[in-house]
């Protein structure tokens, strides 16, 4: 569906002849049908018609209302208010003028003797007359029987957003948005109503004017970083968006069948409106602050610690550290890396048209320089949306949006954020001669993070084109044939150039370059037939349709090494003999049939049913097709006579719905072979365990809710409860390793089979409360509050899925009876204080034999709890030590208008989730995780100091500095101090003042006759403060896909989000 506008598209004074496609606001369909009935009554009434002129104004600010529809009740006589709110209409005394306009309550005025009428319209806070977008169509808001939420352009523009998915954060109940990286341009994670798949993409389906996009899940692999962090939405200018309709209820999403399981976000971009051409320009400048630093040891503390390592036999003595007190503070790497930078965004829009054609054009330039050098995001986009009414019965439209983005990713690809925490303070950023500083040798040493951020060159350029065209044909009244074709094309260029370098003793002799040229295509074509009719009090809408989609991609990669010079960075500068080239292609297709019926009786009882059948190329002929039915019912109880007397209630609708949708994202039907170079040419090995019976993941959801509008629509309360049952989970089940597979890449591995095993449920509550607290001519105060609760539980799985982060002790367990991805580990009970403490405790060393010595368990080692009481500490003593899922999330927005000032305060929060602070874990246990040359957190300066390291003195060994939880320096960690314990799991609860903005609308009269018609200036602070106990950079850490499953709740030292100060001017011409 292309046209999703709510505004009348006729210009003042021009009568519309085909009301069905005028897309009038409010109860359009009703009026249309009524007009037919009225027309049939003939013209027999007596009083003569005369010209009535009038003006439509807002009762709030007394400003004229442009484009309001004025209709003589019971006739087809219609007028539309002009640019100054004025209208003229033929009516007779005693006629009733029905005046309607989007966003206002419909007003009725009886024509008396006066020829002049002032019609005051009050704001309709309930938007009950709105027409909202649904899957493959649109519907009167009052006719909806499924849960869905609308986010408007006005909401989006209140925060500074790089991408549109970020703009959703805190705006809608049931929608959990988190940012897995602060890397400029990085995609957000959007979860609608909780996680619905373990292995597949959990991002919702975005339908942007018909272009269907499911952005890829943010993936991370610390050893093999993804080449980019932006997702498929990054090429869209958030300012082009008119509305986002978030389909959450199962009856609403089921029409998208196999793509709908994660919820659907219907995005309508702005279209032109008939009338004078409008030109608007906006400029925005933001200063991004430095992050707060993670406290690490300074040089004195580091030197003392290093001497401790030497004493424990873990390293050779460093003569420079002989007297730590003589040293300065050393290098503050985080301070050296981060800097304040600018984000800027400039846009223009031109829109307008006449009664036949409308247009909307926009352009945007966006540039965000990262706070760490070597990171940034730039975007240039334009959009053209055209609509034309060719004949009374034919309407066509076209939209197109080319975009260009550049993502600079040195920082993330080289792990520079983490390196800036771990590099030790004895190394200078730069030497006195201006060259980059570095360690004295290469082995086990980290590089210079600041230098790498400058000398590497990693970027991703993307050229995208999104667009489509539609035709609407209305061969007879009520019957519409609609067909549209859409496409989304992108061409990407990943580029990596890592020059050879020498930073003092650290030598990287190899220059490496890599280029990946990648294209991606998607198209769909669908046709549908819709019939609307009303027979008496029965209104019926029926639709059937067919859709075909296909997509694919191809890539060509090349790499070379050993460049003679770093100044030629293309492949031709590298050594031919190191050249590696590769190419890949893949494609997919789906075909679908769908239909739905909506029945409304007397605007009170609503019944809805739909069915979709999807065939997917991801599955074999045996299991190719899936069917997804849905049904819902609603009762507008407020329309009943017994409710009419309850004055405060404007509208109350009770809803109940059921629907099925699915997820087809899996591959694994085919038994692929991997190509392996061998001495005898290319060889081939199995790549995966295939599964010929692979089929759909299914979600079946029941939902009940209500929409209540009270007190002149100044209070709007919507609440929904749901329970979603996901079954046939597409899981890549890790089996015992003796089956030969592996969960992540390892040389020659076979990936585990993808199977339809497992089920889980999500249940939750989503509440939205919108109120207008104060509304008078001077001050208005509105609040929007939404809160979401979601609980998840796995109910069936062959084997627990135990995901290990990067071969460490950090593990996440998905098992029956618990929510997905629980954090597991040991319970640390403190440090061993003396010999008795060790001898009376369960044996912690491998082999189960007590070994009290520095090469076994010693004073100052961590004491882990023997949960099963078997006298040994091993994997069976692991338990759940954290739940990464929030108990609830909320968004709370307050907007105030005082005279010409607008103040907006937006608060978001997430409560009750746990985070594995991996960055802390990695930098807390002496030697074990990060090695001899790494710096550690400041707290490590209090590492345990046993009184002796001599085994023969074991009985008398004590801890000389009790009271801390940092274990002793133990080379090779014989006691297993690196077991993950609850010490490294922290509460991720936070409440954040996400944005506060103050805007001033300049009075138009000050511009006089100049070309400026309107001017608005705003200042805004984003991420002003965050209430949290979390000790990492940022408690908002998001979710990553790692090793084929969705991993939540691990903070690996992600690129931090920072405070942003913005100044913004919007001018209309």
């Amino acid at each position: 569906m292309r046209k999703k506008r709510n505004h009348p598209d006729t210009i003042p004074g021009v009568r519309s002849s085909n009301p069905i496609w005028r897309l009038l606001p409010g109860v359009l369909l009703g009026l249309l049908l009524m007009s037919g009935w009225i027309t049939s009554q003939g013209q027999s009434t007596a009083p003569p018609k005369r010209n009535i002129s009038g003006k439509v104004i807002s009762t709030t600010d007394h400003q004229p209302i442009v484009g309001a529809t004025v209709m003589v009740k019971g006739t087809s006589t219609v007028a539309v208010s002009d640019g100054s709110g004025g209208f003229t209409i033929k009516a007779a005394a005693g006629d009733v003028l029905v005046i309607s306009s989007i966003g206002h309550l419909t007003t009725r005025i009886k024509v008396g003797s006066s020829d002049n009428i002032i019609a005051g319209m009050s704001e309709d806070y309930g938007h009950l007359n709105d027409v909202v977008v649904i899957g493959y169509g649109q519907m009167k808001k009052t006719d909806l029987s499924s849960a869905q939420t609308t986010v408007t352009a006005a909401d989006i523009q209140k925060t500074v957003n790089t991408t549109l998915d970020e703009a959703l954060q805190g705006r809608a109940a049931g929608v959990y948005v988190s940012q897995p990286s602060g890397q400029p341009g990085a995609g957000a994670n959007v979860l609608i109503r909780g996680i619905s798949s373990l292995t597949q993409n959990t991002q919702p389906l975005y339908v942007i004017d018909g272009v269907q996009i499911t952005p890829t899940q943010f993936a991370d692999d610390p050893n093999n970083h993804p080449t980019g962090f932006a997702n498929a939405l990054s090429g869209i200018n958030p300012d082009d968006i008119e509305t986002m309709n978030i389909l959450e209820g199962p009856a609403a999403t089921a029409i998208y069948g196999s793509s709908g399981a994660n919820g659907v976000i219907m995005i309508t971009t702005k279209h032109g409106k008939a009338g004078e051409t409008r030109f608007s320009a906006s400029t925005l400048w933001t200063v991004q602050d430095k992050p707060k630093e993670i406290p690490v040891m300074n040089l004195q503390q580091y030197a003392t610690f290093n001497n401790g390592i030497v004493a424990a036999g873990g390293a050779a003595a460093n003569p420079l550290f002989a007297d730590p007190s003589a040293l300065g503070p050393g290098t503050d790497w985080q301070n050296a890396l981060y800097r304040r930078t600018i984000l800027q965004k400039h846009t223009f829009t031109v829109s307008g048209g006449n009664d036949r054609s409308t247009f909307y054009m926009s352009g945007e330039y966006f540039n965000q320089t990262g706070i760490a050098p070597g990171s940034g995001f730039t975007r240039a986009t334009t959009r053209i949306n055209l609509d034309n009414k060719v004949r009374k019965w034919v309407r066509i439209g076209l939209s197109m949006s080319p975009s260009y983005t550049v993502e600079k990713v040195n920082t993330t690809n080289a792990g520079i954020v983490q390196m800036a925490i771990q590099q030790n303070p004895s190394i200078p950023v730069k030497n006195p001669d201006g060259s980059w500083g570095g360690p004295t040798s290469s082995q086990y040493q980290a590089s210079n993070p600041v230098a790498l951020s400058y000398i590497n060159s990693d970027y991703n350029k993307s050229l995208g084109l999104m667009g489509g065209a539609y035709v609407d044909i209305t061969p007879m009244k009520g019957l519409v044939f609609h067909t549209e074709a859409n496409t989304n094309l992108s061409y990407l260029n990943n580029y990596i150039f890592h020059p050879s370098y020498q930073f003092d003793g650290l030598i990287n002799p190899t220059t490496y370059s890599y280029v990946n040229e990648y294209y991606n295509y998607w198209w769909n074509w669908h046709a549908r037939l819709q019939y609307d009719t009303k027979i008496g009090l029965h209104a019926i809408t029926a639709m059937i349709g067919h859709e075909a989609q296909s997509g694919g991609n191809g890539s060509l990669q090349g790499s070379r090494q050993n460049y003679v010079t770093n100044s030629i960075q293309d492949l031709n500068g590298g050594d031919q003999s190191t050249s590696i080239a590769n190419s890949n292609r893949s494609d997919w297709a789906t075909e679908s049939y769908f239909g739905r019926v909506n029945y409304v009786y007397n605007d009170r009882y609503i019944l809805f049913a739909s069915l979709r059948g999807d065939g997917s190329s991801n599955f074999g002929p045996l299991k190719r097709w899936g069917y997804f039915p849905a049904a819902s019912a609603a009762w507008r109880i407020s329309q009943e006579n017994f409710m009419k007397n309850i004055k405060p209630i404007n509208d109350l609708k009770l809803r109940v719905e059921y629907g099925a949708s699915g997820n087809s994202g899996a591959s694994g039907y085919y038994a692929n072979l991997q190509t392996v170079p061998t001495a005898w040419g290319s060889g081939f090995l199995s790549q995966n365990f295939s599964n010929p019976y692979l089929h759909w993941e299914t979600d079946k959801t029941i939902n009940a809710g209500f929409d209540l509008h009270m007190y002149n629509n100044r209070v709007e309360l919507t609440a929904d409860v749901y329970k979603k049952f996901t079954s046939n989970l597409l899981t890549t089940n890790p089996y015992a390793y003796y089956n030969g597979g592996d969960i992540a890449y390892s040389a020659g591995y076979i990936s585990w089979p993808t199977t339809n095993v497992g089920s889980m449920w999500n249940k939750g509550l989503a509440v939205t409360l919108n109120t207008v607290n104060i509304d008078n001519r001077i001050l208005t105060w509105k609040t929007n509050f939404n809160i979401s609760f979601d609980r998840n539980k796995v109910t069936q799985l062959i084997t627990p899925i135990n995901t290990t982060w990067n071969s460490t002790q950090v593990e996440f367990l998905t098992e029956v009876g618990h929510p997905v991805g629980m954090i597991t580990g040991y319970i640390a009970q403190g440090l061993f204080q003396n010999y008795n403490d060790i001898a009376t405790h369960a044996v912690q060393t491998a082999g189960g034999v007590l070994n009290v010595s520095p090469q076994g368990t010693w004073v100052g080692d961590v004491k882990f709890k023997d949960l099963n009481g078997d006298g040994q500490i091993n994997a069976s003593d692991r338990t759940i030590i954290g739940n990464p899922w929030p108990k609830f999330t909320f968004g709370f927005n307050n907007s105030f208008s005082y005279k010409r000032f607008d103040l907006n305060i937006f608060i978001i929060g997430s409560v009750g989730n746990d985070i594995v602070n991996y960055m802390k874990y990695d930098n807390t246990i002496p030697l074990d995780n990060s090695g001899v040359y790494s710096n550690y957190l400041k707290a490590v300066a209090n590492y345990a100091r046993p009184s002796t390291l001599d085994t023969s003195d074991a009985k008398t060994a004590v801890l000389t500095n009790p009271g801390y939880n940092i274990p002793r320096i133990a080379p090779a960690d014989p006691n297993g101090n690196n077991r993950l314990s609850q010490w490294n799991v922290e509460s991720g609860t936070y409440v954040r003042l996400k944005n506060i903005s103050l805007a001033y609308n300049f009075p138009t009269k000050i511009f006089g006759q100049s070309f400026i018609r309107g001017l608005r200036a705003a200042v805004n602070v984003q991420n002003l403060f965050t209430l949290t106990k979390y000790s990492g950079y940022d408690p908002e850490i998001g979710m990553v896909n790692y090793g084929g499953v969705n991993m939540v709740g691990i903070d690996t030292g992600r690129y931090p989000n920072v405070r942003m100060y913005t100044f913004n001017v919007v001018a209309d011409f």
Partner: protein
Amino acid sequence: MLIAASIVLGLGCSKSFLNRPPISNLTSGNFYQTDAEVMAGTAPLYNITWFDYNDKAFLAFGVAKGGSLNSNDRTPYIEFDASATDQTTLLTGYKAFYKIVAQSNLTMLNIAGATGSTASDSIKNYGLAECHFMRGLAYYFLVSNWGAVPIVYNNITQLSDSIPRNTIESVWQFILLDMRWASTHLPAASYQPGRINKYSVEGMLAKMYLIRSGLDKTEGSRTQSDLDSAKYYAADVIQNSGIILPSDYYAMFKGVNNNSSNNNAESLFSLQWMPESSPWGVNNSFQAYMAFEPQITQTGDGWGAAQGGSADLISYYLNHPEDSIRRKATIMFPGDVYPELNAANGGITVPNSTGYAYIKKYVIGSPADNNNKGGFMAAFTNTIVLRMAEVYLIYAEAIMGNSASTSDATALQYFNAVRARAGVPSMSSIAFTDIFQEKRVEGALEGNEWYDILRWYYFAPAKAMAYVAAQDRSISYTLTWTPNTYAPRQYTFTSSGEHFAFNANNLYLPFPESEMVMAPSLAEPAVPFDFSKLPNF
């Protein structure tokens, strides 16, 4: 309206619209059709599947645990206290062997099940034999490192977490079945240089029979039929394979003489590494970890400053200065000059100041030293798994059999052939410990050290434990050359004197913790394997 509706629904796509087999990938269903395809289907079993063994387990399980390596990274293996939670070495090594098993099994199923194949029976058998050989060898490492382990012969039908462990006897029987199948289905000549042939497998059979002869036996009463089999196969390889010992021990381990383009003349089976690392795993990472300085490799690796010969190995060479050829080819002593390493820059001289004996074997120098082949963590040299000298020593021991010693002329002939090449004097009577010691020195750092101790433990546990307890496994030592002393050079050697004994409890490695969680059946008693379940190929 109905007409319009039928038009909409009639817009269906053709059936092929939803058939989208992978474009860029082969699938098992459309491969293994010709001789060349069958051979391409088994070729990767010579490299990528063995990477994780070669990268980690090879040194940790075989050499460090066997007492020949000093390594700051592998201390738990030297000290017999490897942790079940060790993810980098233990788990990776464990997975490596079962990956080899799985890839061999799946390839066998694919070759045997290919429909419409035009490949000849002899080539199909060749491919199947290669799979049997690789699987049998992987089980040799599994049974040697973990004892009773589950036997997996069909990764499709057996896929589960409840496969029981099979007894050590069953696993040995399975290994020998695999090797015998391979030996009877392979021709005498390799299909391509570096691929196994009948003699490769017979050499391996000789080794396996010799080991099994001691299983659960006592000294002097090893299973005679197994000893006879070892003798039979060793003799066939020695007499009929055409392989003779090259005369120059040192040159044999130069990269240019031992790589997948130019296989070592003495090799019966070597892992065939590529001079590149894409995809990760076709490369040999040994030199990257072991070369003591980056100047040697010139590829940005060479992290072996804390990797060297063990105090025990050094002591042997200090006590046997006559064994200098093998010494210099195995570990670097301070003051040694290696002109062929980084030859373009004048070779490498081992510093005296560090007091350490670095690793030489398989350290081959820069790409420039190796016909411009190789790269970062991808030294172009093969890992030799079995070579003729070992078969000679197996032969000598099999002839000796259950006797305490032998002066058999044939046994002495082959035993002394190995010594003669090394420039050490012949012996006129040899006992088990002589052969054991000879094998240890001849094949030092080639990954067999621990497995030879284990096979000794099979029939003489007290002696094997005493042998290890007496080894100097010092964590630190200092070895310095007294400058200007030559022929023989004089060295000063002091070690910290640690000894680490093993016993029945830490004889085998623990199963990795994460594997125990996944498959609790590994904690159950082992059961005999039902050999009737095996397929007929």
